[in-house]
């Protein structure tokens, strides 16, 4: 280190303390810095374009305490859980069949890549037309966007179940396919399946919001459209903020399951 370097470091003492501070302090500094920047720039902007941070916080608590956020979250969650459960069950059943029955696999796999890459979002308007604007149609929307990641993950997990272990099971007298699935194939596919579930949760939330915003009713999506229509941007942002929170919360749940499942791994 040269002499000038040292001098510079001594002069910018705050910079050095920051560099050596623990990670949480850095996170805190960055977070507070961003909030300050937000507050500052909102001084120069129309509150419709960018309301100050504090009014978003206030809006959030208003929504929280007048119960509308909880109610919206409840509706959204119901939709999400139903759609994801349907995707999980159908994904498991179809994925296992595709992964275990070789002729079905050869029939279906060339379509899988295409279906996986296809923006299923493009079909959402049609789904709502076909299955109605009620809860049923919306559940179909969530199912549609969440199904393919699930299917692909289950198929891959089942297909790649280690052959030597299925052989071990057979050598000890496992004959029925269902027993083989239960004892070897599904346990070894579980990490992959959970990874698919994580992807499905992410997409499912997108499907959920699209269904709600598209119909301008119900759930968080409905709340956002409602306040957007009257240009209450602070409330819009407060409602939006609950979505990543919901997503990350669910992701943490999946992560927890993954950790429980992976405890046998190194």
């Amino acid at each position, binding site marked *: 280190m040269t002499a000038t370097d040292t001098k510079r470091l001594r002069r910018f003492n705050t910079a050095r303390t920051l560099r050596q501070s623990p990670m949480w302090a850095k996170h805190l500094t960055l977070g507070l810095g961003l909030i300050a920047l937000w507050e500052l720039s909102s001084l120069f902007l129309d509150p419709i374009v960018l309301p100050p941070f504090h009014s978003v916080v206030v809006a959030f608590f208003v929504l929280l305490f007048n119960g509308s956020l909880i109610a919206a979250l409840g509706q959204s969650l119901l939709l999400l859980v139903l759609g994801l459960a349907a995707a999980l069950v159908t994904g498991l059943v179809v994925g296992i069949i595709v992964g275990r029955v070789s002729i079905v696999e050869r029939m279906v796999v060339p379509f899988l890549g295409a279906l996986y890459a296809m923006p299923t979002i493009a079909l959402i*308007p*049609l789904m709502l037309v076909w299955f109605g604007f009620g809860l049923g149609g919306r559940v179909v929307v969530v199912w549609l966007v969440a199904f393919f990641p699930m299917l692909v993950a289950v198929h891959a997990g089942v297909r790649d179940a280690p052959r030597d272990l299925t052989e071990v099971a057979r050598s000890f007298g496992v004959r029925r396919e269902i027993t083989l699935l239960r004892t070897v194939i599904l346990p070894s596919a579980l990490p992959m399946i959970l990874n698919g579930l994580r*992807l499905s949760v992410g997409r499912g939330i997108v499907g959920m919001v699209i269904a709600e915003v598209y119909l301008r009713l119900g759930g968080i999506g409905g709340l956002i459209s409602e306040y957007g229509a009257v240009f209450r941007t602070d409330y819009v942002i407060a*409602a939006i903020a609950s979505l990543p929170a919901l997503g990350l919360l669910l992701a943490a749940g999946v992560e927890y399951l993954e950790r429980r499942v992976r405890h046998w791994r190194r």
Partner: protein
Amino acid sequence: MQTPPSQAASLRPDAVTAEAALVPSPVAGRPPGSVLRASWWQLALRRWWPPAVFGLAALILWELISQSINPLLFAAPSRTVEAFGELILSGELLDALIVTLSYLVPGLLISVVLGIALGIFMGRSVTWGTLLQPYLDAIYALPRVAIIPLVILWFGVGYEARIFIIVLGSVVPIAMSTSAGVRYTSVKLLEAARSFQATELQIIRHVVIPSSIPFIISGLRIGTERALVGAVIAEVFLSLTGLGGIIQTEAERFNAPYVIAAALVYALLGGLSMTALGAIERRIAAWKAA
């Protein structure tokens, strides 16, 4: 390839496992039969008859069911083909496709450049990587439809707004995947490069980028998929143009065959880009092996 250790909870797939999921199985990828004896069309036939049979059966079933209920509402395949032909002949489909590509391609390019740059930065600087991660995770977990009201306030409903929607969705997965790749660059290679007094830029160009390519490509896969989704969202929820415009207007008129025809073009775009990425990946792999 190692699996990156899981960090904080996130909705993004674990890149390597997601990749593995789409690698064709040996059954589908390698049809039985010795390469030496069977001619190419025999091989093709052997590989493609099952999906052909399946696809045909599905189409016929769909045709029968929709004919017996309501061929227009349920988009009987025959009606869909008709609609497709009509949209092509009138030039409407091509126009819409060009409009869609006019923001899809620039949006994706911007995302690739920004995403790779951000990913390299986050991968090379441990502190910044850790600091920015939660924000990226939050953006990734944020459904873009939800911020449509904000986008309209900030960018209007025109071209900029569409680009913003696309980039916002695609930058993040590309950056995250790239930074994971950068972080898993072999320490030995880095040390070797440093021992030759390579500068940071040289290290990035000659060591970090080449060794992160599989990760970058897996990020591009997710990024491209999300760019397509972004285009649809922008077209349906901002202003009705492009392919999404056809989808939405025809859905409102209950013209299902037209909706499916336009959606098929989107599926085609998705399939083409995935195929292209796969080809790039194989070329790079071959060049690496050589």
